[in-house]
């Protein structure tokens, strides 16, 4: 039956030859290769839950009176966007689950991208020939952050409206064109003509996701074309890939993993409350709540804004709000540009233009590892700086002291992190056999009283044994029947 179907398709599309290569594609069996899969599957869930949400959400700033089932809000004047988001949570069955799962999926999506990217960076997987894919991935990270911001702005609640206000002021801070850009995007001075939700909506549900889908296709296409990298090990060389075949082993495991990721996201969506907009209330431009923090992936930008000194530049009849422009426009611009050009910087610096399919151990590249650690420390430090008010409250310290601490901590911590990481890498390179279990030493005394020391026998687990890899030819020469029958994957029979 399956044979017949495959033949029917092959008669029309000729899938057999390329298809065999495709199902033989090898996926390395290392846990760190799952990180990108988490991002992929959260994106799948984002699309699914997102489609559900679009059916009920109304992107409109039009004011109506709320009559839904959330009693404290009844009779209040709210926007249609806010009312429909609250209705979605309380009056649409499974609506709250879908909404919260969507929000959690977005947070996990960006978290998985960040960790996946760190793995790729620290192991040198971005090197030739994979620079394209590094750039495509970075673009998806940027678009993911943008779309996350647009998405949590849509409910028009007090917290997200404050975020939109801040975004408007950041756009306004751009020299020369800032106020024009702000007026065009919002249809006038903030809060504009109420058109901003419609614009954010179409960008959030159509334009950015469409670009991400395109980039995702390119990301996976490049991965198939260029094949995976792999960690060094027995039988692993620059000229092969060792692991499990796409079909059936990898497909089974990864499909199972899709379900596992979904389980976690829907579990969080049902049990861990996120963004309870009915508690925040409708956005009003003159109202604000205490301890307003954005979603985690925006925290680093918020923190940078907080610790920046008030350096507004005024002269020749013009103002450049450097206290906004530098931390909110120049800083992220620099970070993303450094990320994008890093593979080229590194190959110029190391004069290394060879192909690299075997991954580095981070310790073996102390400078790169230290640079990555410094970058993560910088971003982590500004991230924590975004909760200065919460920390001041929690530790019972004056807010000003906490801010001053971060003004020094943010620039200094990365330097310290670079130095420490660099030293640790060097020490680890110098230490022989690090990471292996030490053999027990057996001390014995002879009848004459002399002591001798011998290493104990090798016990299981002392050395990590790797198995011999079995060849799976990717290209079957069908003109040679012997080769055709000898090739293939193993199957368990009983």
């Amino acid at each position, binding site marked *: 039956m399956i044979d017949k179907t495959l033949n029917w398709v092959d008669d029309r599309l000729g899938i057999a030859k390329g298809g065999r290569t495709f199902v033989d594609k*090898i996926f390395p*069996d290392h846990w760190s290769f799952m990180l990108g899969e988490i991002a992929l599957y959260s994106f799948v869930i984002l699309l699914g839950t997102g489609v559900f949400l679009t059916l009920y959400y109304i992107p409109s700033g039009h004011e109506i009176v709320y009559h839904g089932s959330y009693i404290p809000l009844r009779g209040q004047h709210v926007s249609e966007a806010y009312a429909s988001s609250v209705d979605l949570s309380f009056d649409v069955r*499974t609506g*709250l689950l879908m909404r*919260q799962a969507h929000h959690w999926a977005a947070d996990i999506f960006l978290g998985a991208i960040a960790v996946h990217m760190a793995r790729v960076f620290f192991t040198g997987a971005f090197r030739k020939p994979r620079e394209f894919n590094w750039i495509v991935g970075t673009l998806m990270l940027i678009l993911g952050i943008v779309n996350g911001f647009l998405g949590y702005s849509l409910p028009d609640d007090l917290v997200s409206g404050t975020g939109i206000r801040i975004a408007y*002021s950041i756009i*306004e*801070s751009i020299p020369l064109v800032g*106020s*024009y850009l702000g*007026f065009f995007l919002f*249809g*006038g*001075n903030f809060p*504009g*003509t109420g058109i901003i939700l419609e614009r954010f909506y179409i960008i959030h549900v159509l334009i950015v996701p469409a670009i991400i889908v395109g980039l995702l296709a390119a990301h996976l296409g490049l991965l198939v074309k260029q094949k995976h990298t792999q960690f060094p090990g027995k*039988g692993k060389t620059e*000229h092969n890939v060792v*692991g*499990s075949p796409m079909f*059936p*082993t990898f*497909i*089974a*495991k990864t499909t199972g993993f899709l*379900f*596992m990721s979904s*389980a976690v996201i829907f*579990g969080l*969506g*049902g049990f861990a409350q996120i963004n309870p907009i009915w508690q925040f209330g409708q956005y*009003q*431009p*003159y109202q*604000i709540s205490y301890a307003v923090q954005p979603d985690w992936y925006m925290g680093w930008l918020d923190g940078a*804004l907080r610790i920046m000194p*008030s350096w*507004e530049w005024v002269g020749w009849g013009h103002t*450049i*709000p450097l*206290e*906004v422009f530098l931390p909110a426009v120049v800083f992220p611009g620099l970070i993303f540009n450094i990320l994008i050009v890093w593979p080229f910087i590194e190959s110029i610096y190391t004069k290394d233009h060879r192909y690299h*399919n075997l991954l580095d151990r981070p310790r073996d590249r102390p400078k790169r590892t230290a640079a990555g650690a410094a970058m993560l420390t910088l971003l982590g430090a500004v991230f924590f700086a975004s909760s*200065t008010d919460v920390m001041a409250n929690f530790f019972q310290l004056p*807010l000003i002291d906490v801010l001053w601490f971060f003004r020094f901590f943010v620039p200094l911590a990365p330097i310290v992190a670079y130095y420490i990481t660099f030293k640790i890498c060097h020490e680890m390179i110098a230490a022989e056999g690090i990471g292996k279990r030490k053999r027990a030493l057996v001390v014995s005394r002879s009848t004459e009283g002399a002591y001798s020391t011998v290493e104990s026998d090798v016990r299981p687990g002392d050395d990590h044994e790797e*198995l011999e*890899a*079995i*060849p*799976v*030819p*990717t290209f079957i020469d069908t003109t040679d029947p012997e080769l*055709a029958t000898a090739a*293939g*994957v*193993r*199957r*368990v*029979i*009983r």
Partner: protein
Amino acid sequence: MSDQNPKNNGSQPPATLDDPHLQPATKNPERMETLAAVAIVIGMLGFVAFIWAYWVDANTQWQAAALTVGMLGLGAGTIAWGKYLMPQGPFVEERHDFHSSDAERESFNAAITGRGGLEVKRRGLLLSLFAAGGGIMTMALLIPGVRSLGPKPAAAADTQAPTDNSLFTTNWKKGAKLVTVGGREVKVDDLQVGGILTVFPQGHEGSSPDQVVLIRLQQFGQVEKMVPPGRKDWTVAGYVAYSKLCTHLGCPVGLYQEKTEQLVCPCHQSIFNVNAGAVPEFGPAPRPLPQLPITVDSSGQILADGGFNQAVGPGFWERP
């Protein structure tokens, strides 16, 4: 999982059960098959429970629990199937460098660089013109695409521009009555010392650029020592009024600490001293909150004694 199809061209000699490549648990395949099957059945039950939870409109937690069990079961079963009952490597696949052979490169490059059709002298000219044409076309299409989105910001000189179209104007005029967001007129006796109220010019309640904080610092008289020189007439009966838009990013400066007489912006913790003309004492805000001159009429109604003397809110390029 037996596969004894003799026509299977892709099969190697089957692995025996003592093959070191197999997971130890695969030594008993029946057991593993049962395990995977049980997990999938649990998953199915979870999904059925989800349908039930939906049907009876059970609360979100029940729905999530059912769905989670469903996906965990299905996922665990599929992974067990893949891990214990499918071919386990490591398998190896060869790979080759991506670049083409020198001959292929040469012929490709020659096709790109050498296929000029007729030999013309000014091929470079056509190319530059084509690029310029494409660039102008892009501009031509982009300009309406961007420009149609919104109005042009009004210039600073246009003091009559509506607030929707200008970053410089507000609706505060001489004689505008101070009202609450609900439209209630604010009288001189409304606040006690230390009291604070968000007010708007009558007829513009709730408007973003017009929001003002009215604070009563003293019981009577002018509070000239608490405002910059030259502004002693801007206060009345111990009241001062400042724009509520933070000069950093335009958040409402909503936290008033009565003890220290400081206004704190909850967004990025800029601190303004209302005791000294709302100058920023700490944080990223660069400028004092613009002050609104106020006065009182014979009925005790507080009025604006003029508009703001500068643009309110965060900085921007056209701000002088």
